[in-house]
């Protein structure tokens, strides 16, 4: 690497960098924190501790700086087994919905991640997503729906997801839906392209 490369990068960063604030939401264990890890450092790990509350992370990818809010799927007590929480989720606790809204307001993009293999939770996911989108404060914020874990057998396709989550009914905002996998990093390049398009 020639000596001037860092300088050049810095200069080009100064003039051409785009930024985006992104909020990532979704049900428990859908792969939100994994997404941040993969995007941020390219590392995927089987064992991710459930997020308590939220995490914030600044990620620089090429010319784009992303500030990612990784928001917990449930307002949980840490160190409780995940399974016991999964059940209570479908009822949609009002507490955790309002927290989503808090961190989604003012962002450039909302990413909603669904576990495309866990079809039983699609109903709960649809309910939460539409609940979130109904907030006035979030009107017209672009939405990206990711069907995660497509490396697993029997995962739902994009079309199935659109149907199950009733994405076709969403009006007056940009909506995209991709099927991807954090484990195999499948389709992540498209996701990044989409994010670049919606950053400023």
């Amino acid at each position, binding site marked *: 690497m020639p000596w001037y490369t860092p300088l050049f990068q810095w200069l080009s960063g100064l003039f051409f960098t785009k930024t985006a604030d992104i909020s990532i939401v979704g049900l428990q264990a859908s792969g939100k924190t994994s997404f941040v890890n993969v995007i941020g450092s390219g590392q995927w790990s089987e064992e991710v501790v459930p*997020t308590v509350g939220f995490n914030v992370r600044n990620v620089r990818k090429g010319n784009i700086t992303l500030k990612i809010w990784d928001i917990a799927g449930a307002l949980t007590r840490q160190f409780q087994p995940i399974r016991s929480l999964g059940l209570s989720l479908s009822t949609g606790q009002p507490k955790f919905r309002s927290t989503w809204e808090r961190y989604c307001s003012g962002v450039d993009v909302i990413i909603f991640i669904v576990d495309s293999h866990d079809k039983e939770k699609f109903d709960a996911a649809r309910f939460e997503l539409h609940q979130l989108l109904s907030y006035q404060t979030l009107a017209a914020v672009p939405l990206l729906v990711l069907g995660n874990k497509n490396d697993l057998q029997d995962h739902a396709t994009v079309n199935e997801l659109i149907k199950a989550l009733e994405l076709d009914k969403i009006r007056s905002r940009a909506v995209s839906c991709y099927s991807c996998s954090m484990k195999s990093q499948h389709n992540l390049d498209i996701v990044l392209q989409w994010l670049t398009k919606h950053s400023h």
Partner: protein
Amino acid sequence: MAFASKKDDEGLSAYYNNKTTVIQEARVFNDSPISPRKCRALLTRIVHLLYVGESFSAQEATTLFFGTTKLFQHKDSALRQMVYLTIKELAGTAEDVIMVTSSIMKDMQPNSEVIYRPNSIRALCRIIDPSMAQGFERFFKAAIVDKTPSISSAALVSSYHLFPNAKDVVKRWANEAQEAVNSKSSTSLFGSSASGGYLTAWGGSAGQQTSGYQAVPSTSYITQYHALGLLYLIRQQDRMAITKMIQQLGGGKTGAGTTLKNPMALCMLIRYAAKVLEEDPNVQKQMLDLLDGWLKHKSDMVNLEAARVICEIKNVPTFQLMRAIGVLQLFLSSPKATLRFAATRILAALAVTHPSNVASVNVDLENLIGDANRSVATYAITTLLKTGNEASVDRLMKQISGFMSDISDEFKVIVVDAIRSLCLKFPDKHAAMLSFLSGVLRDEGGYDFKRAVVEAIFEMVKFISACKEQALSHLCEFIEDCEFTKLSVRILHLLGIEGPKAPQPTKYIRFIYNRVVLENATVRAAAVGSLAKFGLNSNDSGLKKSINTLLNRCLDDVDDEVRDRAAMYLRMFKECLLADAYVKEESVFSLDVLESKLVSYVNDPSASATPFDASSIPKISRAQAAADSARPSSLETVGFPSKKEVTPTPQLSAVETQSAFIQQLKEVPELATYGEVLGSSKPAQLTESETEYQVTCVKHIFAEHVVFQFNVSNTIPDTVLEQVAVVMQLSAETSLTEDFIIPLPSLSAATSPGIVYVSFTRDSPEEYASGSFQCVLKFVSKEVDPSTGEPEEDGYEDEYQLEEVELGAGDYIIPTYVTFSSEWDRLRGGASATETFSLSAMESLKAACDSIIEILNMQALGGTEDPASTTVHTLQLAGMVVGAGGSGKALVRCRMTHSKTQGVTLELSVRAEKEGACGLIVSAIGG
């Protein structure tokens, strides 16, 4: 200085003290990119608002809180620290604060930058639920022993805060805390930070800015202070461990071997030592040696603390005390005002208990009278007042009145209290002191200060009769312009009591009537009461008439209470009997009994059909009531703001113990049908106090039953008594039939004392059965296996002879207080009996009085229990005789003569409301 900062505050508040603006401006948190400067300013304003006492609603706090969290992970380190500070402050009111746990955790990790770690640890302990503490255990343990003092301190302090809610978890961190105490801060100034944890790149892939941080060793060793605090908190229940810790950290006799370098930690250790010393006299020698060593420590703070503790120890050896005083004496001439202040303050406190010892530093204290620091001077003078002699009082008073206006209310109270105790010490000086007190009464001052002055004058009125008139007129003057309703009312009450006795009562009336015209309703009502007392207690018909006129004017008052009082007192002027009952009556209800009776009356729905019967409540004289509620004498508590509340060991008066017995009896189902207890005796010892089984007996009289309550204590630790019963054998024929015994199933040393009840039926309730009973304690004794703590299978039956229990006239009588002469006259027509006895065995009138009072269990009235003459005396007694058909008053007049040859001759006259009572009393003396 204080003035300047106040002004400053006002200037700022115009800008800062606006919650609404702050909440509106909180939008900047959502800006992208974040402006660190703006955000920091806003966060500062939020924290400022919280510090000056502004409160945010839960919703506002939550909004701000979550706004703040948007700033997490910002590069600007100052902003980041401010974020933590705000989170900490808002965590108490905001909801869902648990949301930020993960984000905070990120900054706590060992690879995070050192500057953020303490902040995040301190914030975390406010955020998390106690139940989560366990999850952070590994992390906290590591942080406590961290080499960086700030991190270690933060972890220790956070553990301290977590302790009350997560005791079990934090207790496990004791070893780490111990290590933190002992750490000698091994990192040297140039020590390598090779551990790498301190050198981190942050920002992940961005990784352009790398900031290094070196662990700077602390010069203050403050960590030791924090660690010691946590250690003590963990071990405080275990006195042995604390004693060991003090000895270990105290570093031997000279104190040189200690690992503690932080003076605050040492001060803390001294306080712990004082506590141990107070609780366990066995270690006094060792602790005193340690304290003595600390007197020579190189830090002033430690010396002062050690000296203070030594001065506060009860019965400290004099040579040790003198050494402490010697250290304080050195500080008296220190150039630092704080040291002088601390030393004089300790001496002022010591002067209360050991004035003669403090007198040795009087010369140095004299020099401080003119000290530029008024607080030091105040303490010096009050100390001198306590230690000085009568001659120096005048001079000191003059000095002190010179700067009374310069010092704060708090110190004025100290001065006034010192003067007050001085009055009682040197009653001859009352004129100077009274004029001083009345002088300061006219000064500006808050309620506490004015109350102290007024109470001091009250005390003078009470104890120094020579200055009564003067003092009352000063008080009259004061209420002319008194802004404190409470004080006005108290003064008016005192005037009502003391005024009529004065040679010229009329001169107070103008002052009092002025209150009726000028003041608020509460004061007006008090003034009416006071006025009436002048009229009712005076024999001057002119005065009576004028008071009548004044009271008649009060009938037009706008306030109900004032009108009611005026009307009531006017009625009393017409009917002398009423006045006797309500104004001149010297007795009050025994409040404890009144309370317990009222509570049971209110709780019993069937009782509400009949009005509450107040006649069954014993009365006590005002003097006795005052003695019961007496606060500790001013001489002992005066002069320094005492930290330790004096916890009075409650001396249960007879009526209070009775209320406690009634409570116990109510819990026994077998006795529930007996109805109300008519009377209970005082506990009587039936064994020697040092025997292995101790028994006391209390007799309860019911309408148709007598219940004996035996309180049995087993003092032998490794035996259990089972089936404990008391067998009572009547020694002579009486009209009592035994019903049942309620035995104790088991009694060990830990469960002692247990209660055994024996119940008898009174065959003819109108008779007052008496007699004596042989009592035998029966039980099965079983050894306790020390390894299991279980009693063994087999035991042996045993008996234990107790002293006899007497049931006599005294058990049917409750002492009560009445005004003897009027009551005696009133009972003229009732049952009466007169009999003459020759008490040849009595050696003196005093002995006769004592035994009569004891036998009859009646209240001696008007101080007649102490004969003034050796030959002739009249004893007046009053009591309530309890019986099936209700209780009745009984009065006894004992006229006695005494001569060497014949002993005491007694003429006993009884007047009672009930016929049977006379017989009971006469037979009690005769039998």
